[in-house]
């Protein structure tokens, strides 16, 4: 016997089913619209059992298979009169227009047809796209010919009345072409001419586009559903088929009875409508067929089309088993490698574990616990393949006793199992990482805050998916390739993508700050969270009391021979230092595993910071070392905040009166400069910038002056802030906010901008009714001199809202556009890979790059894109 593996698919041919082929495919002719007679399907009706077995226990009368293996068989309806297939109307339209109404040949001279046909056959092999264009061209040319060049017949204009009616514009008026006439004309088209019109006559004769036999889909395609009440509900397609058969029988009777043509045409139209609806129930220009409850019926097109259609809903987007989804919430105490799973979910997801002498006792306990008590088991599969559902199995004790190697136990998810964890949109490979399960009470997934950046997750209602792994291969791959610690370094820019934000940064700064001195109690409080075992270092201050610095505590966790020097984030502005000898403590120096100088801030502990301390640590001490560092040291930062307390208050954004005076002064000066510019403009002495009008020049200059003013005011005011002001600490260390945010809160908002210009639109010549026409002053064009602390006046609030809305619109547009761009890029690049010889090739082996990136550097294993970091190597061995 030939197995299907012995065949290789060479190609797929699409064609149109001919009436003969339809009859050959069909196992039964449908003649009656009756579905059931006393609960039994009627022979020759739309539920005829010859179209496939569907009821449990039924055997197919055609193939003898039970429902599970019967593929279903087609039926057919012999139509009383031909009807047009709606899917082909546009092609039929083209064919009718370009062929002769009496001889069926293309309306072009014979030699031209011959030449084009030769060209067409050649083009089809090499340039199928061009061949299509040629066909289009031929159709266009032929449709314009008024008289047949072959038989001399006068041609009339064909009009298509959508969706499926054809008319001919004859001198005596507009004449309806019945589908029968249409079919006759299509039959006349010679094979060669059909070929030049883009058809393959062997598989798609033109006349097959007008149906004389309707192929009926098999029953498994349109299974009835029986409700719990025992009432059967038929599929939409079956409903449509019933109406088709009814209309067909009606038409047959009317024709037989010799009724007048008008009545026949009316019934014919009913049949045409119903057959069309079977294919597509959203045709424009005809009413939508509805169910009894007014729900539109689903045609074949509706099954395939759209987001929930067969393609996008079932083929591109599949649903999986052994998965869970719920809200996420933070847990800073679990490892970054772990995920907290609610007990309820752990009891539903199962892992199939083979019984061996080594785990038999453990699995016995699971079985005794049963399906409702965690950690238990849901199913047992015996060695004879029988699956026992523990929900309905009483004597679990006996089952546990009888357990032996060869059985499989579907046990609950337990601590230590590995699962995949994912957050949409899955934009990069860090969007789906493997975590180790910790089962917790509650209803949410718990994850360490440090893995928020790779998932781009927060806890304002985000949900995430979890997939249980069942095969040993999958589990092994997850451990080796997908575990979170294997993804600390991003292949996108050769640096760590995992790291702390917000609280972690503030905490790290407070802990490492020069002013922090910790008593023995404090040190114990902070260290207790890490599980540190070992001696405390000698206190930095011994008398009168023992005090430790935060730097000493961090040093406990640094590798003993680790060296590092580098600037901190705060190393800028007033706190700038160029070398390790830094008064402001803004230059980090680690020597032999001792943090000697410098504070930890965003640069040291933050996410997506390349070539920082953690990056070097991963490179030199490995991923699992880095993971331990993340798990232990970062918990101390949070502890530090708990110890000290950290908040922000209104007074943090209050500036002293003398600063306020300076700001007022700056605003006054700025206004004066703007007034002067406006005056210059009005006097006509303003010098235009090359390539700009005078008005544009004025606008540009005003914006420049106003922005300068805001920046100067902000800068001067910030100088007055206390360096241990909470808001200032957050902005400077990079925990949250920036100088601009502080300026907005404490000093002023400055010019509001819409579309890169001052606000100009609104009323004619002015923004609001409160201003005179042509007023160019700062306040009339959206300059906000107040700040968030003092509050905005009503007009400022309006301008601020206008600019704020633009920001919202921009982000919405930007995300959708860049998302689509990335999707296209991924589709284009998805099957490229780096082969073992270092070349980049596509799936067919075509070379795209001769050596990956030309330098063969794996960005994930590089230092921020560089293959070697000489500075670091020197640094590493200095003064060891």
């Amino acid at each position, binding site marked *: 016997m030939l197995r299907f593996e012995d065949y290789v698919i060479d190609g797929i041919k699409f064609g149109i089913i001919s009436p003969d082929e339809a009859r050959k495919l069909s196992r039964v002719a449908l003649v009656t619209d009756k579905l059931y007679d006393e609960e039994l399907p009627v022979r020759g009706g739309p539920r005829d059992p010859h179209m496939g077995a569907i009821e449990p226990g039924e055997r197919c009368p055609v193939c003898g298979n039970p429902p599970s293996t019967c593929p279903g068989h087609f039926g057919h309806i012999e139509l009383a009169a031909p009807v047009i297939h709606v899917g082909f109307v546009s092609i039929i339209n083209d064919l009718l227009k370009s062929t002769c109404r009496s001889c069926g040949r293309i309306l072009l001279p014979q030699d031209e047809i011959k030449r084009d046909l030769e060209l067409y056959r050649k083009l089809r092999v090499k340039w199928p796209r061009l061949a299509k264009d040629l066909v289009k061209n031929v159709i266009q040319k032929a449709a314009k010919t008024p008289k047949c060049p072959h038989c001399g017949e006068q041609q009339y204009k064909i009009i298509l009345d959508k969706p499926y009616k054809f008319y001919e514009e004859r001198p005596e008026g507009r004449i309806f072409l019945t589908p029968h006439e249409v079919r006759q004309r299509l039959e006349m088209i010679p094979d060669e001419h059909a070929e030049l019109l883009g058809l393959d006559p062997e598989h798609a004769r033109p006349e097959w586009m007008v149906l004389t036999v309707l192929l009926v889909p098999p029953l498994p395609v349109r299974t009835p559903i029986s409700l719990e009440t025992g009432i059967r509900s038929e599929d939409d397609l079956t409903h449509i088929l019933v109406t088709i058969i009814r209309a067909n029988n009606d038409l047959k009777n009317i024709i037989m009875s010799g009724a007048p043509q008008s009545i026949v045409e009316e019934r014919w139209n009913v049949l045409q409508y119903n057959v069309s609806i079977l294919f597509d129930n959203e045709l424009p220009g005809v009413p939508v067929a509805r169910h009894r409850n007014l729900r539109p019926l689903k045609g074949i097109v509706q099954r395939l089309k759209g987001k929930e259609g067969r393609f996008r809903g079932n083929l591109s987007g599949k649903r999986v088993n052994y998965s869970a989804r719920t809200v996420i919430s933070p847990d800073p105490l679990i490892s970054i490698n772990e995920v907290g799973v609610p007990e309820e979910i752990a009891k539903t997801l199962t892992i199939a574990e083979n019984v061996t002498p080594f785990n038999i006792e453990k699995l016995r306990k699971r079985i005794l616990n049963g399906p409702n008590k965690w950690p238990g088991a849901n199913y047992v599969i015996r060695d004879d393949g029988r699956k026992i559902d523990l929900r309905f199995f009483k004597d679990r004790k006996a089952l546990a006793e009888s357990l032996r190697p060869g059985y499989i136990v579907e046990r609950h998810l337990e601590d230590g199992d590995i699962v995949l964890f994912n957050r949409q949109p899955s934009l990069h490979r860090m969007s789906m990482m493997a975590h180790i399960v910790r089962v917790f009470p509650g209803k949410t997934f718990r994850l360490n805050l440090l893995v928020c950046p790779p998932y781009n997750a927060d806890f304002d209602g985000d949900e995430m998916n979890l997939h249980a792994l069942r095969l040993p291969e999958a589990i092994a791959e997850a451990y080796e390739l997908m575990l979170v610690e294997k993804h600390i370094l991003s292949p996108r820019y050769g640096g760590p993508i995992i790291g702390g934000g917000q609280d972690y940064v503030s905490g790290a700064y407070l802990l490492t700050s020069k002013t922090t001195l910790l008593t023995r109690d404090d040190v114990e409080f902070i260290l207790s969270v890490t599980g540190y075992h070992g001696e405390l270092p000698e206190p930095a201050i011994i008398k009168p009391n023992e005090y430790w610095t935060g730097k000493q505590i961090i040093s406990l966790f640094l590798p003993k021979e680790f060296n590092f020097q580098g600037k901190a984030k705060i190393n800028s502005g007033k706190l700038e230092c160029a070398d390790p000898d830094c008064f402001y403590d803004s230059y980090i120096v680690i020597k032999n595993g001792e943090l000697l100088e410098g504070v930890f801030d965003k640069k040291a502990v933050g996410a997506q910071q390349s070539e920082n301390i953690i990056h070097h640590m991963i490179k030199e001490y490995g991923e699992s070392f880095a993971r331990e560092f993340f798990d232990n040291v970062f918990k101390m930062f949070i502890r530090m905040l708990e110890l000290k307390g950290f908040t922000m208050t209104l007074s943090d954004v209050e500036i002293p009166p003398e600063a306020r005076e300076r700001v007022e002064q700056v605003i006054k000066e700025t206004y004066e400069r703007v007034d002067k510019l406006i005056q210059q403009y009005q006097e006509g002495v303003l010098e235009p910038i090359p390539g700009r009008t005078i008005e544009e020049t004025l606008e540009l200059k005003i914006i420049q002056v106003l922005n300068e003013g805001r920046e100067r005011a902000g800068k001067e005011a910030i100088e007055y802030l206390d360096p241990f002001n909470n808001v200032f600490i957050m902005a400077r260390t990079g925990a949250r906010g920036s100088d601009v945010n502080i300026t907005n809160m404490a000093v002023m908002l400055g010019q509001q901008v819409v579309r890169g210009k001052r606000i100009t639109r609104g009323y004619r010549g002015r923004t609001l009714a409160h201003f005179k026409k042509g007023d160019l002053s700062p306040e009339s064009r959206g300059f906000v001199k107040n700040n968030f602390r003092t509050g905005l006046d009503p007009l400022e609030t309006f301008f601020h809202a206008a600019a704020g809305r633009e920001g919202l619109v921009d982000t919405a547009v930007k995300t959708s556009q860049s998302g689509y761009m990335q999707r296209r890029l991924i589709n284009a690049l998805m099957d490229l890979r780096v082969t073992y*010889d270092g070349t980049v090739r596509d799936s*067919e082996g075509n*070379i795209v790059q*001769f050596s990956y*990136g*030309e*330098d063969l*550097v794996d960005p994930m294993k590089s230092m921020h894109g560089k293959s070697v970091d000489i500075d670091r190597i020197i640094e590493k061995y200095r003064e060891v």
Partner: protein
Amino acid sequence: MTPSKVRVKKKILSHKLVPKHELLSVEEAAKVLKEYNVKPYQLPHISVNDPVVRLLNGHPGNIIRITRKSPTAGESVVYRIVVAY
């Protein structure tokens, strides 16, 4: 080669944005194909109508070695097969 063609050749080949192109001999070409274990059509293509290819008098099936400066690797060598279109 007409004098004007020589001039054009000089002009194109000496332009700073045109990397070095070389026409490979049959032996060299065979070596390249063996080195990368590829069929000729699996190499990137270059048109016979490409000005540089025309100047080198390349024909479909020839392999051309292009050596260009690379920001990441200093210098990079790629091979292209001349195609008829």
